[in-house]
């Protein structure tokens, strides 16, 4: 600083320059200067039938589970950006579950193998295809017979046939197709009793549904068609079937039941046989014996048996995971026969053909023993991950080490492929060809929707190349150059038929079944009580979100709260409240479960929906490999399981008693739930079928003065807001602008609105993932994304909080749409309770509390009824979020959309999935549900381009499109031609917090309960 002197006058040159420099810097930073110069890269030759900036749609198949749903991939400028159900596909009829939506994050997974890998000096290192294939050829040469085995993840359709043909054509050994998520016991029993592996289940034809552990909404069987049928059945309201769930733990399916009968684990067989006896079938168990075995009262079972014989038709389902599951499934199939349900609610003639034949863990254990004995020289593995899914007692990893040469075709670095010698990464399903026969006579086509992301090759092509030269194949035996060629020869009509089927992904014809493939048979062993010592039964269930673990590497699925527990990025142990009290355990305290097979430690979650003598853990987490999003998160529940199989050879997930003890440590639950109770707020409402029939309005919470609660007037203003006085009441057209009903733009003619039918909603959360996919919502829970709240006090002083889900612990999840789950009743810990699911999103209030508090007009109400958030106006005061009574506004804390940041949510190439129609929000911006305004504008643009008016129900939002319950209806409530305009007039319609005069555009239709006759709830 210049020393002060009294002589100097005027501004000195140096001071002048200082001011000038500072002002220049200020104006430069304000002006932002020139945008970074980008290049515009043209095509070399433009592809036919594509228009830049306009999506192309390809019909293909979803391979995330075995069900074989049809999807339509939206491809923009050569990149798949969204998956939706194929409306013409017979299995899923347009709907798609969360796992199907997340297939895109498998395609663009940053941890995918980017090219072939070869083990060198103990490490898998990148290699060329030529080198890798030469190596495989060398090692295959001279091997024959059962020295070469093939282990593949079962997928519906032709690939299993192809591998069979390849193996037998080259004279190799067994091809094991496995499916860790398949219920082999039920499949085998169905085949034996109904003559179909997976008969279609018609929930709508039933008057009573009884599920003995069959979690048909959690991923058991073909969950999308089952959910479509179940939701349609429940939408019959007063005529809907009553649903009783029998099981030790209430799964998502169980939470949708009207009544939960909490039987002791392992007693399912006694209950099933007793019900069989009561239904007129041959049975050796009386209701009294079953009551004793199951810990229930005889009256309870008596009432169920009576209801079952009095209510016809009914639908009884078995899905027990005990060692005697095959016997349960057999008994249940006989109950259905005795009650005359076969052909009515269980329809073998309309079977889903996607399942089987597959082998279970028992056969893989036998394979492991042969591998240990040195009988296997080369093992080829595609898709399956037995090192993760099999219990440690099978010693599969150790056995694998004894195989001299292991080849993996895995796309991802999973636990099994990491132990292999060569990795020849397969194309992702969205890059591959295939066919399946999901329903009899219907061929569904799988076609590549885009160029491969990485240097991968389809396994079928690789196998053909291996067969062509080097190996002892007769030259004429494999004349096809590619798997596609082979497939074309099997497609009715050949290449022409295939081309024709490409348009909608469907053709007519049948595929041969895999003859000679080992198939599970229903077991004959006697039911035995669960073994082991300890006061508790351990129940392990597949996760409805992650399955048996395959979903764990997709951040959308990690971030999707479990529909039951609302916990994400974590494993948890479910404890009954009374047990928690006895052990002195609170939510998040670690507990250790010890069985004869092993032990696991995880934080506790206190849950009403498990029996007091039972603890439950979900599968899916605890990966030791499988990429950055899966590795090191939670525990693998299989670690506590021994090599116990059910009659069909499948791993028994409920197999033993366990000791449970409080352990050291506490991990806060990464939960998106505020409270599991409504505290009288009337958020999720319900009424009974009897009340509905009698015209009782159900739970009415607060009456408020003003217009009727479901009035939707065209245009901006709710009746309340129209009551404005003083200056705000000016109504001259100049002041109103586009809000003037007479304005030439006619924008006020519409009122976009949504109805959500809680009688249909099952809480499956497919809509949440669809919203993430459509709206570029960042996931924030990965371990490197967590900023410590007190930057200089984090564990390692780095300022980073590396616990999985650290941002979510601070309430910083970004889920524009969330499913709230509320429990009703059961406060005493003993009586039955009810669960209500409620999708909560921006309510687009006509009189929104968020709008007047925004100091910069970044949120306001558009003339067509949207509550708009303008990102470029937002300065991040978060006043709007404080004002919102629904808590549906989400603040972008860390710049998840900025590649340079550690918190970047779309690491290359995940960013290729981003929807180009939606802004990727930057740091410091409030964001929320937009009612998919990009779809509204796109539909308006298309209509204008075609010189026509918007048609009613022409388009819908991403959540409504995906919903496998068809619970969400979107449209223009001011135009009576749209479905939503009628739905809002429904007797069951209500607004959440209508006493706040928010005049929301989201209308909920009350849930309808079906209590037992004489029951209150």
């Amino acid at each position, binding site marked *: *600083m*210049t020393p*002060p*002197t*009294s002589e*100097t006058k005027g*501004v*000195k040159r140096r*001071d002048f320059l*200082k*001011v000038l420099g*500072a*002002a220049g810097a*200020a*104006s430069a930073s*304000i*002006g*932002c200067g*020139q*945008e970074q*110069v*980008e*290049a*515009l*890269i*043209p*095509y*070399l*030759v*433009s592809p036919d039938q594509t*228009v*830049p*900036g*306009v999506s192309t749609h390809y019909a293909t198949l979803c391979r995330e589970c075995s069900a074989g749903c049809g999807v339509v991939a939206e491809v923009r400028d050569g990149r798949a950006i969204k998956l939706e159900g194929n409306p013409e596909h017979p299995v899923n009829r347009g709907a798609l579950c969360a796992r199907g939506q997340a297939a895109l994050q498998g395609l663009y997974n940053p941890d995918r193998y980017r090219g072939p890998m070869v083990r060198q000096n103990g490490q898998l290192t990148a290699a060329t295809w030529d080198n890798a294939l030469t190596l495989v050829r060398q090692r295959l040469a001279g091997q024959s017979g059962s020295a070469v085995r093939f282990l593949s993840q079962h997928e519906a359709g032709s690939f299993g046939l192809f591998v069979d043909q390849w193996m037998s054509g080259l004279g190799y050994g067994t091809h094991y197709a496995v499916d860790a998520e398949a219920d082999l016991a039920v499949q085998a029993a169905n085949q034996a009793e109904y003559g179909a592996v997976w008969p279609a289940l018609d929930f709508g034809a039933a008057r009573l549904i009884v599920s003995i552990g069959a979690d048909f909404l959690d991923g058991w069987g073909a969950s999308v068609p089952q959910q479509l049928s179940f939701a349609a059945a429940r939408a019959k309201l007063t005529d809907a079937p009553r649903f009783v769930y029998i099981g030790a733990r209430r799964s998502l399916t169980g939470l949708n039941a009207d009544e939960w009968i909490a039987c002791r684990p392992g007693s399912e067989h006694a209950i099933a046989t007793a019900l069989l006896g009561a239904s007129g079938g041959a049975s050796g168990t009386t209701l009294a014996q079953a009551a004793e075995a199951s810990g229930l009262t005889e009256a309870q079972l008596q009432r169920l048996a009576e209801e079952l014989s009095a209510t016809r038709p009914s639908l009884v389902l078995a899905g027990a995971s005990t060692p005697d599951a095959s016997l349960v499934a057999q008994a249940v199939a006989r109950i259905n026969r005795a009650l005359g349900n076969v052909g009515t609610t269980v329809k073998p003639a309309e079977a889903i053909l996607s399942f089987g034949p597959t082998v279970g863990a028992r056969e893989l254990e036998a394979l492991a023993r042969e591998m240990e004995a040195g009988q296997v020289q080369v093992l080829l593995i595609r898709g399956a991950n037995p090192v993760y899914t099999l219990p440690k007692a099978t010693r599969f990893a150790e056995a694998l080490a004894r195989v001299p040469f292991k080849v993996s075709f895995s796309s991802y670095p999973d636990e099994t492929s990491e132990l292999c010698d060569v990795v020849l990464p397969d194309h992702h399903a969205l890059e591959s060809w295939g066919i399946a026969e999901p329903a009899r006579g219907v061929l569904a086509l799988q076609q590549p929707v885009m160029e491969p992301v990485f240097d991968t090759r389809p396994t079928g092509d690789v196998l053909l190349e291996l067969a062509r030269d080097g190996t002892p194949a007769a030259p004429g035996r494999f004349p096809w150059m590619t798997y596609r060629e082979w497939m074309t020869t099997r497609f009715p009509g050949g290449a022409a038929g295939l081309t024709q089927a490409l348009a909608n992904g469907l053709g007519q014809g049948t595929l041969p079944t895999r003859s000679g493939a080992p198939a599970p048979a229903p077991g004959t062993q006697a039911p035995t009580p669960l073994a082991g010592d300890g006061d508790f039964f351990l129940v392990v269930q597949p996760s409805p979100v992650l399955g048996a673990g395959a979903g764990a590497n997709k951040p959308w699925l990690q971030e999707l709260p479990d529909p039951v527990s609302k916990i994400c990025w974590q494993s948890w142990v479910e404890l009954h409240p009374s047990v928690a009290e006895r052990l002195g355990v609170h939510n998040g305290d670690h507990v250790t479960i010890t069985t004869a097979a092993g032990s696991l430690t995880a934080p506790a979650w206190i849950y009403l929906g498990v029996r007091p003598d039972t603890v439950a853990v979900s599968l899916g987490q605890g990966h030791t490999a499988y990429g950055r999003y899966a590795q090191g998160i939670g525990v693998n529940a299989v670690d506590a399981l021994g090599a116990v199989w059910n009659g069909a050879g499948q791993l028994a997930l409920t197999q033993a008693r366990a000791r449970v003890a409080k352990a050291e440590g506490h991990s806060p639950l990464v939960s998106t739930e505020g409270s599991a109770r409504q505290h009288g707020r009337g958020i999720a409402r319900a009424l009974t079928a009897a009340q509905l029939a009698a015209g009782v309005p159900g739970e009415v919470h607060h009456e408020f003065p003003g217009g009727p609660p479901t009035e939707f007037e065209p245009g901006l203003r709710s009746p309340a807001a129209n009551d404005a006085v003083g200056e705000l009441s000016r109504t001259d057209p100049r002041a109103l602008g*586009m809000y003037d009903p007479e304005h*030439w*733009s006619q*924008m006020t003619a519409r009122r976009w609105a949504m109805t959500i039918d809680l009688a249909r909603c099952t809480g499956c959360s497919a809509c949440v993932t669809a919203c993430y996919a459509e709206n570029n919502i960042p996931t924030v829970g990965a371990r490197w994304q967590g900023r410590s709240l007190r930057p200089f006090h984090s564990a390692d002083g780095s300022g980073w909080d590396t616990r999985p889900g650290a941002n979510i612990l601070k309430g910083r999840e970004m889920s524009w749409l969330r499913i709230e789950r509320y429990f009703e009743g059961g406060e005493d810990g003993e009586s039955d309770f009810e669960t209500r699911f409620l999708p909560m999103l921006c309510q687009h209030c006509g009189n929104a509390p968020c709008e007047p508090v925004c100091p910069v007009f970044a949120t*306001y109400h*558009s*003339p*067509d009824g*949207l509550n*708009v958030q*303008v*990102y*470029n*106006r937002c300065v991040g005061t978060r006043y709007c979020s404080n004002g919102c009574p629904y808590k549906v506004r989400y603040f972008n804390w860390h710049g998840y959309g900025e590649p340079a940041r550690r918190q970047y949510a779309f690491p290359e190439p995940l960013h290729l999935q981003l929807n180009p*129609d*939606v*802004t*990727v929000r930057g740091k410091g911006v409030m964001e929320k549900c*937009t009612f998919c*305004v*990009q779809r509204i*504008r796109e539909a308006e*643009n298309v209509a*204008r*381009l075609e010189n026509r008016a918007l048609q009613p129900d022409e388009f819908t939002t991403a959540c409504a499109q995906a919903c496998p319950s068809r619970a969400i209806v979107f449209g223009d409530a001011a135009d009576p031609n749209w479905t939503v305009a009628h739905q809002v007039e429904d007797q069951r319609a209500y607004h959440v917090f209508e006493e706040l005069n928010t005049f929301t555009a989201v209308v909920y239709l009350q849930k309808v309960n079906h209590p037992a006759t004489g029951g209150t709830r």
Partner: protein
Amino acid sequence: MSRRRSWVLVPAFFAIALAALGLSAYSGASSSQGFAPLQPVDFPHPVHVQQLGMNCLYCHYSANRSPDPGIPAVGTCMGCHTIIGPNRPQIGERAAFRSAPLDSLHRYAPPGQPTAWQAIPWVRIHKLPEYVRFPHMRHVNAGVTCQTCHGPVQTMNRVYQFASLNMGWCVNCHVRGYSLSEGLRAAGDTAGARAAANEAPRKARYDCSVCHY
């Protein structure tokens, strides 16, 4: 300098910064208006549009059916320029000459060797921020001539950004309306402009959510 006078610097700084802010907001200083970069291929719009009479949509082929106007594939250039090469022989009174722009094209796309073609890394001139949606087809189909926003491209030997592309510039047209007559005049269609002289300006919706989402 006295201690008192050094305090004068603080308000002076703010005054100048404020003036700079005002200037930048209302002068278009934050815009890339006038940006005229050198392009990898020295493409002469006047030759193609004025001399040869090609329609804009021949190369910018999706401007009337997509939000994205489309830039021509290298194959589109080479459809003609495989035959029309850089060497022009003497034709009548027109002297022989060698075309440097065509030489630069053929460096990226040697004629007769499609496998050796490379994409031309054009420098992007018109760029809206990522939070703005600009559907070209809505404007083109409403009769907005290309020149209304892009200026007299038909006369530009080197293309520059004609308009500021600032929001005020967009909204002005949406609120006051687009004059077909002026648009046609800008496109050089004086007869059409005269015929459309009495047409009412065409307005467009100006709600935030029309463009920002």
